[in-house]
């Protein structure tokens, strides 16, 4: 790391995100001799999947399971690699010229990189149901974070609802930790089995089969699982009191609940990549927008690569291998190694990646969320920040508003602090549905820096040279 001037630090490679992809990328890049900085907004490494892995509060390893503890194997090599680690640092901007804006402890700084690897991972899909903004409704991931980082578990009974492997994993972890679950409301559409069947051979040959079967059995033994749930709502006055639901063709039922944990899959966290101008495409299998990248993670923007779930959902194991491939490509682009050496060193990571991706097509098809839970109606809040409902969005489309960016001007939806992270996919699908188009045609919010809020005071506090000051100040 060197400071070319007091105004801006420089580095060769900036890696953004300290989950499995970012850790693996930064480690290998530093080992190859690249001056590497790893930024992450969390206080400790591991991203979300390996949250708190460096300082886990839980001593009983069986609770979280072996897949979690694997994350610890990434730490020592990273610390030994010589990469510069900047935790509790938010990246709010990456320009096309690879100038990176960061903020730490309320102070903003700029850094100039020659190459950037985005490893910002995934976030949970929005799950817009009536009452989802009530205190007492959280994501399954949030409950997992409380467990991993703080050893906290729901007191009294929790209701889990949705679809996807993470929901079952959380249920199992909760049971192992001594928690109680009132019910797991499974919203997996029955028809998904038919679509998943062609992918079954790959799944049976993957580690997911044995793990998944064991997990499901563990949970079903002790938790009432209610399948074919087609309608769901959270009820309460100021806070959650009950969960109402309906099974396919059934009458409405109600469960008293103080905590509702929702999950229907994960999607890439696209905000930074989108704001840089990286091309994205709609993935119909995973129902989300995904950056367009090649086998090395290279995006459509020169010098910007994307690794891990942020490049497309494939899981933690795949993320590590993609991080290493992106590091090798960075080393070639920065002239550190030749392509011949890259090809040789990449081979084991490419094989490992192929193995890690086996079985995912089956999971994607089986746990594809139902349309009714992706595209809400009526008074269900779509944009949580600006409190915009599905009905308002539909009515605005009827007025002629054709896409999400126009929608911002009409309704402010997508303009709140979350910058579309919790409403973007819903809005794109809602508009597409209303117009009879694919989300690919409708597009997604156009995001601009800063991708995380910062104050004018922080911006004004950026170091300036005398010329810059003289250009603006009078007298």
């Amino acid at each position, binding site marked *: 790391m060197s400071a070319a001037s007091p105004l801006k630090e420089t580095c060769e490679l900036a890696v953004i995100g300290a989950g499995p992809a970012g850790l693996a990328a930064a480690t290998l890049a530093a080992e190859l001799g690249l001056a590497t900085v790893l930024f992450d*907004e*969390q*206080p400790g490494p591991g991203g*979300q999947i390996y949250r*708190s892995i460096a*300082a886990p*509060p*839980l*001593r*009983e390893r069986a*609770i979280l399971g072996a897949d979690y503890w694997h994350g610890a194997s990434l730490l020592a090599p990273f610390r030994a690699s010589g990469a510069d680690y900047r935790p*509790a640092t*938010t990246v709010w901007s990456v320009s096309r010229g690879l100038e990176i804006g960061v903020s730490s402890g*309320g102070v903003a700084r700029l850094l100039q990189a020659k190459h950037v690897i985005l490893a910002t991972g995934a*976030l*949970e899909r929005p799950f817009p149901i009536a009452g989802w*903004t009530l*205190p*007492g*409704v*959280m*994501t399954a*991931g*949030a409950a997992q*974070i*409380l467990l991993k*980082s*703080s*050893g*906290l*578990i*729901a*007191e*009294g009974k929790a209701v889990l609802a949705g679809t996807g492997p993470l929901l079952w994993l959380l249920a199992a972890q909760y049971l192992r*930790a*001594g928690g109680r679950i009132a019910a797991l409301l499974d919203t997996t559409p029955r028809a998904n089995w038919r679509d998943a069947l062609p992918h079954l051979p790959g799944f049976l040959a993957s580690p997911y089969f044995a793990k998944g079967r064991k997990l499901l059995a563990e949970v079903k033994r002790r938790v009432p699982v209610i399948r074919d749930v087609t309608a769901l709502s959270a009820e309460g006055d*100021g*806070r959650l009191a009950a969960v109402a639901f309906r099974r396919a063709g059934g009458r409405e039922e109600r469960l008293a609940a*103080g*905590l509702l944990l929702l999950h229907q899959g994960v999607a890439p*966290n696209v905000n930074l990549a989108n704001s840089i101008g990286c091309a994205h495409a709609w993935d119909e299998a995973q129902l989300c927008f995904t950056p367009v990248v090649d086998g090395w993670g290279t995006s459509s923007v020169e010098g910007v690569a994307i690794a891990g779930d942020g490049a497309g959902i494939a899981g933690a194991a795949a993320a590590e291998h993609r991080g290493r491939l992106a590091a090798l490509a960075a080393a070639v682009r920065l002239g550190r190694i030749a392509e011949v050496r890259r090809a040789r060193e990449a081979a084991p990571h490419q094989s490992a990646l192929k193995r890690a991706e086996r079985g995912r097509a089956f999971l994607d098809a089986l746990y594809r969320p139902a349309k009714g839970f992706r595209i809400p109606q009526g008074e269900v809040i779509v944009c*949580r*920040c*600006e*409190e915009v409902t599905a009905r308002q969005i539909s009515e605005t489309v009827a007025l002629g508003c054709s896409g999400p960016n126009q929608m911002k001007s009409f309704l402010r939806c997508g303009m*709140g*602090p*979350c910058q579309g*992270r*919790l409403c973007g996919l819903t809005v794109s699908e809602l508009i597409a549905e209303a117009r009879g188009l694919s989300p690919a045609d409708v597009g997604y919010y156009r995001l601009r820096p800063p991708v995380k*809020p910062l104050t004018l005071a922080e911006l004004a506090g950026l170091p300036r040279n005398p010329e810059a000051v003289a250009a603006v100040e009078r007298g």
Partner: protein
Amino acid sequence: MFRRLPDASGDTVTLTVDGRAVTARAGDSVAAALLAAGILACRTTPVSGTARAPYCLMGVCFECLVAIDGRQNRQACLVAAAGGMVVETQQGKREVGR
């Protein structure tokens, strides 16, 4: 609504929330500390004044906005709870200068 597993390790830290002393563990985020103390709603929305509570705990939902040590609009899930911290729930939008 959340209880601490007996297995969970970590030193105790004490902070104040709206003037009330709250005990947390080292390693908790401020959001986790609030939830552990039974404090669910942490703010009211600028648009309608409706109570909201942390939703994602990973920094993407922006529901857990509180004032920490005099500065508002801080994502409680991204700030590590520390002894002596002064936390205030936030009513509506951030005031300029706070």
